[in-house]
């Protein structure tokens, strides 16, 4: 096991550095949002945001981190049923999040609060949209993991793949917490 473990440690360090890169990107986008919000022209954030959708989306996304932890536990205990259930539930919760987010964006645009309406909305969409793109990518990643699962790979290999994904997914969740606190919370409560 020694060999593969050392190489996975390399990969983990590299992936954490990559998440550091992502952190700087999101931090810059948060700064952009704070600079341009609220806008001097057009809609104020409190007129735009739909509180229930935001809260519901948050519940789905944050609990998806919990179901993913379930899958990781299953991996450690070599209970493949738990792993499968964990990934499937995480995937479903992520899909629910995406549906609500698409609905939310659709509603905003429908009410004239589109990407180019004012700089608050522009910086809102480029930040929250980039996060949504990360969730979308995560969904595809989970689908690929499920496919990998069906090919019955070596246990250690599957565990490595799941761990890498879980770092990504928990990171995407943490970004959402900051989006909730910085983008939405000041204007919906």
């Amino acid at each position: 096991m020694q060999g593969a473990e050392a190489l996975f440690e390399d990969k983990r360090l590299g992936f954490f550095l990559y998440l550091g890169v992502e952190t700087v990107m999101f931090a810059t986008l948060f700064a952009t949002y704070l600079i341009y919000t609220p806008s001097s022209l057009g809609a104020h954030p409190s007129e735009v945001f739909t509180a229930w959708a935001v809260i519901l989306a948050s519940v789905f996304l944050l609990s998806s981190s919990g179901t993913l932890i379930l899958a990781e536990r299953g991996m450690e205990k070599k209970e493949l049923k738990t792993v499968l259930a964990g990934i499937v539930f995480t995937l479903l919760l992520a899909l629910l999040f995406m549906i609500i987010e698409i609905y939310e964006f659709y509603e905003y645009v429908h009410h004239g609060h589109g990407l180019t309406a004012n700089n608050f909305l522009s910086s809102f969409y480029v930040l929250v949209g980039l996060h949504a793109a990360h969730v979308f990518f995560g969904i595809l990643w989970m689908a690929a993991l499920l496919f990998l699962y069906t090919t019955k790979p070596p246990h250690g290999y599957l565990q490595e793949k799941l761990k890498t994904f879980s770092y990504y997914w928990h990171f995407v969740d943490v970004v959402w917490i900051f989006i909730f606190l910085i983008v939405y919370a000041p204007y919906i409560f």
Partner: protein
Amino acid sequence: MTIDHLFFPSDVIMAWIFTAVSIPVVTYLILKYRKMPLIWEYLTTTNHRKIGTLYLLFGFLYFLRAGLDALFMRIQLALPENNFWVFQSDKYNELFTTHGTIMIFFVAMPMLLGLMNVAVPLQIGARDMAFPFMNALGFWLFFSGAALFNMAFLLDDAPNAGWTAYTPLSTNTYTSGQGNDYYVFGLQVSGLGTTFTAINLLVTIIRHRAPGMKLKRMPLFPWATLVTGVLIIVAFPVLTVALYLLMFDRLFGTQFFSGPEGSPVFWQHLFWIFGHPEVYILALPAFGIFSDIISTFSRKKIFGYNSMVIALCLIGFLGFMVWAHHMFTVGLGPMANTFFAITTMMIAIPTGIKVFNWLFTMRNGVIRITIPMLFALGFIPTFVMGGVTGVMLSVAAADFQFHDTYFVVAHFHYVIIGSTVLGIFAGIYYWYPKITGKILDRTLGKWHFWLFLIGFHLTFFPMHLMGLNGMPRRVYTYNRGSDLFELNFISTIGAFLMGAGMLFFAWNLFKTHRSAQIVSNDPWGGRSLEWAVSSPSPEHPFEEKVPVVERRDSFWYSMQEQGKTEETEHRRPGPIAVKTIQPFIIAMLMMPLCIGLIYGWWWLAVMSGILLLGMFFVRMMTDERKQLYLSQGGG
């Protein structure tokens, strides 16, 4: 579409003719000398030396291309009110934009990353870069981004808003063609590659050092690489976001950087929060190269090793706190200007420490004037002059006079050519045995060095005086009788001397390729581990054993004391070498993706995007680590 759109200017037609002639010629030569297997080998390799060679090769080609831009600019400026070929007004804007962008992103960056790829793993006793697959991907992304950027010229739509792409000029209100979109996407794609390579270098240095190679025993080039890697992963994502926002402004109608609410100054902040660390990303590796070279050719350990490392870290740290010195004239107020003036002046302290340490390393040393050492000796006074004008520019009040004049142009060419370009040449001459197994010719090297150095000072020293006389940068002409003619004419002569120097370098590469013999492991009497392996470095260095490292410059001491090195085994597995075309395909798919976005051909963008995601899936299913787990018994 008017009749004007159907005619390209003659420079673009020349480029088309050149392309149309060179493609069949190159194809013929490849077929005639049966080089297809070699090309396939390099398309699929993940070996650090080969990828480093590719970085150096393409960096050098772009150096010639952007150097040609520079010569065109110098010819246009040689005489007052000159009208050389087509290079006036907007064409001149394209010239200085492509010159600057290519030199920074597609010459200096890849050539430094190439030298790091070649030398760093060997210097620390690693068997390859930590992630060989990602290493290849990083290179091909640079290749793809650079190709994308250069395509714009062939469509007579080269980027023209300067390498800094200041808004609102770079928004589509003022530059409505596609040229600056190519800038945005070209930098985005190659920036992604740079980020990957930086992560790779960091993990390699942190986790793949040979037994006994503590951080405090590392040579200074790996140290410089380590600090540079950190700068890259902090600075590049800011550029990524700046370009991302500019993309939305140009393509999707947002107004982050212009309009009633947008702020052009916000672009300047984002760009320079990236851009100033970028200056140190270019300079620090050169410092590392010169430290190793000066130590080797003085037959002395580096003077003040600890202070050298601390100075590298301090420069890297301070590099993030000086960005607004590019913006003194924006009107950020006296408090901001004072703060950034002081931090800028502070950088002179660690840099000065390094300069004195290099001098003290040479003092009482047994100095051998080889070509790499010549470049190092040329570097010190040149770079110090650039540093001194840097301190002059940091005085905010005085900067109001210097800003956007040729004084600034003189300053940054003194620092960037003085450190980075001379450092790259020094590094190529120094590590050429590890890249090809041969030593570059000494006589031709001297011609290269002296022509380039004299040409350099002749080109750029007069620019200080032009700037003080009030000549603005980025303007394609000047009036008769404005006391600028003599200085400009001298400068143009200097530029051609530099060009002649480069011809000698190209001739040297050719001549060495044709004739020279393969040299031994250690042709220079080197001090670090790269000289323990054969020349050129083997495909799998240190695979069985690695020299014992008990102290700094351990290799040199054991060669002096015993004439050989004690060897030991690695305590951990090395990276898994693979041969794969996937990195090339992934990077090439970025091109239709970006072109689809630039022209709004959404079907193309979506299709390439799907193929790209498909490639991620292919990569996941063909991961070489699966075999490792299988061989370990399914664990």
